[in-house]
């Protein structure tokens, strides 16, 4: 199997690569349109800030390529947010695969960012949580979130319920870091690779 990890300027992807190494998957880290298009699976990871990341994707024209991909695509953390319509983080227009806007957590009592292990609950159709319990713990670090809407496939509660996972056609997304979420995260990645 041919896995492409999309190369861009959002954070380091070492943890994602090591997670794939642990399950014996081979991958290419690339921003080459042809390599990405011909891959069996595409992973769109990321840790970073929305407007800087979108600017880079536009420069490389990846913002036009990614929404047209037909193979299974897994986006995590900022990758997931960039697949949504708009992010409140520096008022950034994103790629719009998921028809939902990203907003910032607001609370006077709870801490922001949301950091640590929180439980997620499968919601509607969720192909990546197969073989897992309906509720599982995964590791989050984020200040912005997608509200629950029709493509939400897992819900987490912090300040209010929000989308921990999204699923629409060939696009799969997780707000948490599957690559460092223990055995649960590993199973989610394995389920994605088995699609």
């Amino acid at each position, binding site marked *: 199997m041919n896995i492409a990890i999309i190369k861009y300027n959002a*954070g380091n992807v070492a943890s994602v690569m*090591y997670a794939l190494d642990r399950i014996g998957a081979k991958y290419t880290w690339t921003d080459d349109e042809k390599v990405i298009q011909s891959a069996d699976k595409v992973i769109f990871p990321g840790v970073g800030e929305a407007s800087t990341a979108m600017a880079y994707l536009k420069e490389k024209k990846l913002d036009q390529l990614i929404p047209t991909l037909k193979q299974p695509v897994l986006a995590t953390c900022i990758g997931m947010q960039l697949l949504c319509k708009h992010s409140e983080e520096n008022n950034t227009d994103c790629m719009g695969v998921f028809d939902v806007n990203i907003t910032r957590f607001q609370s006077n009592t709870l801490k922001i960012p949301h950091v640590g292990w929180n439980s997620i609950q499968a919601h509607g159709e969720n192909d990546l949580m197969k073989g897992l319990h309906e509720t599982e713990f995964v590791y989050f670090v984020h200040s912005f979130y997608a509200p629950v809407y029709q493509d939400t496939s897992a819900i987490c509660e912090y300040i209010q319920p929000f989308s921990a996972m999204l699923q629409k056609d060939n696009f799969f997304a997780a707000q948490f870091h599957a690559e460092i979420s223990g055995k649960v995260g590993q199973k989610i990645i394995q389920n994605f690779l088995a699609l």
Partner: protein
Amino acid sequence: MLTKRIIPCLDIKEGRTVKGTNFVDLRDAGDPVELGAFYAENGADELVFLDITATIDNRKTLVELVKQVARQVNIPFTVGGGIGSIEDVSALLNAGADKVSINSSVVRRPGLIDELALQFGSQCIIVAIDTRFVDGADWVHTHGGRNITALKTLEWAKEVEQRGAGEILLTSMDTDGTKAGFTNTLTAEISTHASIPIIASGGAGTMEDFFDVFTLGKADAGLAASIFHFKEIEINALKNYLAEKGIPMRI
């Protein structure tokens, strides 16, 4: 519900864990990679590796070690000790560390926090604060607690958050090594003023100490070293105990 985190800390010297352990079921208890993987399998929510020698010669050894740990360990892990520049942080993150912990270098030059947060994002920047109660007030210390600074602990905690730290690792030099419990009053004071998570460290001796630091101390995470290494407390048993007492835990 967001859970409270239990974090074992491993002291590293020249690529080996320093304080011995009595993990008889490990082939090599001095091997940080094997010990880290053991903890990850047995309930630890995160790991912290602290390079206590932190000389330039040891940097390459540390980066190599980080790579090996990252290959093995599937939970978040932090590396600290002697980090003083953007290049240091870049090398450790590229090797697979999820976060770095910085201490003396940001006391010397606080602007480094802003630079690191801008470059790498606040989520991977932990500022470690070593504090000691001297002449009626809590003061920030550096160099493993040997040197007092002119910074009051609460004021410094506020400043590091404002500059972009993602979390604070608060170690009380008054309780560290005593096993008499965490410094709950100061931890609570800082946690109440901060909107970023506080990892409490120093003084854990019993399971009750963790209950106290999460309730009285309002900490988001509890860190300890020797009590875990010597199996005085097993992490899974600790988490079960805390969960039964109503503290949210990842079991």
